[in-house]
């Protein structure tokens, strides 16, 4: 009996070597394990004829043999499957560089909105409130409140849109129109930014748009200084341009600040060497800034004896143009979807 078993196992080992398909393996399984006619099943049936003790011994031997044979078949099966998969990998190979056919284009978020989100993130992380004000503003908040009284020559510097029938309404020429509104609402100390649409009655060309977005920033507190302004401006520009920027300040007159400066960024396109974009100066003007004039603080209900602060106003389009290499300011208000959807 034991010899018989050994022979069966040996036979299986020999036969299984020539099996290469799942189908042949199933046939071989049938030959050995089939309940009705399997070689092993036949031996099992013989057990019934044996005595109790012998049955015990032979039963164990038979069972061990069965486990062993199943292992042999199992390992043959996994090697057949493995080679099958290798074949499948070849026959089912795809062009991994091809795109999904007729994939839907995603929608787009406007580039000015995207930069606005970045700006808001940087400033809110520094504790700034994001504030807003009307685009159609009173002459008072747009001019008088920020130290530009009627007939002040500075009114000439900004070509203003006026509203028929309402001589004291204007389309705001700058986001500085929100300075006094914010001071009146929140008082001091305050950190606030105001991104928003402004309007100037100027002919539109590659560098100018009559409708444009500005970023106003304002910090007022007991001892807020010009040094703090330099710190905050450098920090946010470095974050926005994702590089350590160099900033230069030059004198510039704005009625609502004293001292007032122009803010210029070292041209990172040419690393300050001078290129077409920076007009060979190595510097790019990105906005104005300065220490808030005491008259403006007073209009906002803030005592200038105990408070001082700085404000700045940057052209958002300017920042976007520099960051993304856009050369024409008219791009931003275009309705042509080809600019937004890549094909």
């Amino acid at each position, binding site marked *: 009996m034991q010899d018989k078993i050994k022979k069966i196992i040996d036979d299986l080992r020999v036969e299984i070597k020539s099996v290469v398909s799942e189908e042949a393996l199933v046939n071989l399984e049938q030959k050995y394990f089939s309940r009705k006619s399997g070689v092993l099943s036949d031996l099992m049936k013989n057990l019934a004829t044996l005595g109790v003790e012998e049955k015990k011994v032979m039963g164990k031997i038979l069972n061990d043999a069965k486990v062993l044979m199943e292992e042999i078949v199992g390992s043959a099966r996994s090697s057949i499957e493995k080679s099958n998969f290798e074949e499948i990998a070849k026959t089912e190979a795809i062009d991994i560089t091809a795109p999904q056919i007729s994939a839907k284009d995603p929608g787009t978020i406007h580039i000015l909105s995207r930069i606005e989100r970045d700006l808001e993130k940087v400033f809110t992380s520094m504790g700034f409130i994001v504030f807003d004000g009307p685009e159609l503003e009173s002459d008072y908040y747009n001019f008088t409140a920020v130290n530009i009284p009627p007939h002040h020559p500075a009114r000439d510097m900004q070509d203003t849109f006026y509203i028929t029938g309402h001589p004291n309404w204007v389309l705001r020429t700058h986001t500085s129109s929100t300075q006094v509104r914010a001071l009146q609402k929140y008082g001091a100390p305050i950190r606030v930014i105001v991104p928003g649409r402004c309007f100037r009655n100027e002919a539109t060309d590659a560098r100018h748009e009559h409708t444009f977005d500005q970023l106003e920033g304002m910090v007022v507190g007991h001892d807020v200084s010009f040094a703090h302004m330099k710190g905050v401006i450098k920090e946010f520009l470095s974050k926005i341009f994702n590089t350590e920027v160099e900033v230069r300040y030059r*004198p510039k007159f704005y009625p609502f600040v004293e001292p007032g400066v122009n803010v210029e960024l070292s041209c990172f396109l040419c690393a300050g060497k001078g290129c077409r974009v920076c007009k060979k100066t190595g510097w790019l003007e990105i906005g104005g800034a300065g220490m808030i004039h005491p008259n403006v603080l007073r209009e906002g209900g803030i005592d200038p004896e105990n408070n001082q602060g700085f404000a700045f106003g940057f052209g958002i389009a300017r920042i976007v143009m520099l960051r993304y290499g856009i050369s024409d300011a008219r791009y931003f208000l275009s309705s042509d979807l080809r600019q937004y959807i890549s094909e």
Partner: protein
Amino acid sequence: MLLSYKWIKEFVDLADSVTPDEVAARLKASTVEVEKVTHLGENLNKITVGRVISADAHPNADKLKVCQVDLGRETVQIVCGGSNVVANMLVAVAEIGARVRWHGEGELVELGPVKLRGVDSAGMICASSEIGLGDIFPAHDEKEILDLTKHDFKPGVNLAEALVLDDAVMEIENKSLSNRPDLWGHYGIAREVSVLFHRDLKKYETIKINEGKSKIKVSADAALAPRYMAVKMRNVSISPSPSWLVNKLNAVGVNAVNNIVDVTNFVMLELGLPLHAFDARSFPKDKIIVRAAESGEKIKTLDGKEYGLKEGEDIVIANDSEALCVAGVMGGEKSGVQSDTTEIVIESANFAPSSIRRTSTRLGLRTDAAMRFEKSLDPNLCPIALARAVELIVKVCPGAEVVTSVTDVKKFNLPVGPISVDYTKIDSVIGAVVDRKEINRILTALGFELKEKKTGVSVKIPTWRATKDVGIAEDIAEEVLRIWGYANVAPAMPKFSITPPEQDARRHLVWQVRDSLSLISQFSELKLYSFVSPDTLKKLNINPADCLTLDNPIAKDRPFLRPSIIVNLLEALESNLHRYDRVAIYEIGRVFDPNGSGPRTEKNSPELLPSQNVKLGIVYSAKGNEQPYFAVKEALRQIANESGLEFKFVKPKNVLSYAHSGRTAEIFVGAECVGVIAELHPANAKAMGISVRASFAEIDLDICANLRKSVRKYIDISEFPQVTRDMAIIVPRNVQHADIVAAIMNTNSLVTRVKLFDVYEGEKIDVKKKSVAYHITLGAGDHTLGTEEIENVLQMILKTLRDKFTAELRS
């Protein structure tokens, strides 16, 4: 404004090692914008004075001349395209080997011998811009060559030597001087240079006027002219100025006219105060009247044009019978110096800046004089400038003498302080400690008079800075900071409480809307102009009376402020439909409603600005989609999902003028109407040139932001199975989905969800009816539903639907 470096150096003894470029760089960093520095005479090698002997027609070209040019040592033939070239003209000749800038543009190019249309040309007769002299000799047209005939130059002399071009000219941006009345002349700039380079400023010395006995009477309104000085001179003979004067004026781009006018211009360029010289015959009674223009008054000025004056606003200089001159803006044609003038009256005055500004702007006369007077000049310049002018007239016009006493009518009061400034205030504005000695040096050198006190200084403001520029401690801090240097201030971060900033609910919502529309619903965000055209309004049947109008629109065809965010989006839809089959766009921005109330015009003012809420506009169209309404509604559902707003769609009470009345709804959040959704009315679509069905929605995000539920609650998944059954019913067409869903949900508490999955209208059923099919989900929180229980609920639902909507099961 152009500045001569040599002229500046007359007042500051700069070291020879200092270059004009260094001076310009320091001025840029601390004082004004210097746009460029031109080194005169630079690149003028082999540029020679020549005399045109003959200028004959070119055999092969109409616009060219063949010239024989005397260069002193030789005569050369040059082909010239200059429109003004004639025989005997003195010209600038670029010889072979000279470097010129073609047409004043691009890089310098070295000249070689050439044939032009078959004729040899040995060099070039130059336009001023081609040899870098465009600023000081501006050409009237592009083809004009530089005419040197009026100079007494010998042919063959190097041009730089002939013109004494060893100077450098700085071009200052006028705008950057708008708050600095003291910097409109060389002396003022020299003062800045002296401070920046730690050199002494030379005192401006004048010779006392040797007054005569007679008197000129001046009647001046102090509100119009805070100061008016005049003096009369005789034995004047009008002639060309000597070359030192001509060269000085030319260097800064001012043309020489005659000795008297040149002197007044010289003094203006030096001190910044414009003077005017009258022919004394203009004042037959020796009486000068400074007054506001009268009704209907007209004046013919130096430029030969006649201007109507504005009563009570324009200031004129007049005699008893007529206005002679638009004061501070432009002289009159007849009253100025003439060729036969022998007696003159010199005016040295100060006029009300805002009046000068308004007059010059209105008349379009932005003259050198007006630009200066409108900046609030120091009235104390008047006697200095007058003395200087008299001194120079005597110099250029030997024999000339003053015949009257100096009349000086004045009434002004400058706020020169003193103001008290603590050093610590300066420190705290700057955020750095500047050495006290340096503070004192800077201020003293700028002309401030200091008295040291315990904690700071008492500062007396120099009159030339007191007219409007400097008045408070912050101004003093600025003076110190700009001279000390912005770059010297180390950046620092302010100290603030770390309390998180207040969040703006609408801004938050706007971001959720953008994310939802762009990233989930595949819409593209546009930003369009806030201005709309009457043409488009008409196409949409929108009444222009509901729009605010611009007084001064930049685009004449877009004078209205947008009353709705949809208007320009529909234009954008139309243009993009030419390129895309599916156009899904939106914009978020303010719209202007003249009938709504917005913020106050001033803190306590009763006047309100018009409402200008932030609105979301969505526009959608896709070829083949006959019911685009649902695509827009789906986009809104995604927004609702993202933001927690619960939109309800209700049959509108008022249908928009451009909405399809059968396909429009008002959008509600709770009890508040927040917007509208509709298909574009076919008639309006046609008018707009839109040939496919389009739908849109407009929602007020300012209102929505206040209606959001702050917290959404989690609902447990029931541990007992849910069962879904489908039910298709036929109902009259006007029965609304929302009502059916509400009815089903209300029938029994075991109904957990009702979802529409099919709508059918068509041949197979009654034309007045529609078939709607729902997945109805049932479940209980505490047990598994039995078959009978389920059947029971379904029957109840069916009964409800029959009763309410005359629904019948579709077989």
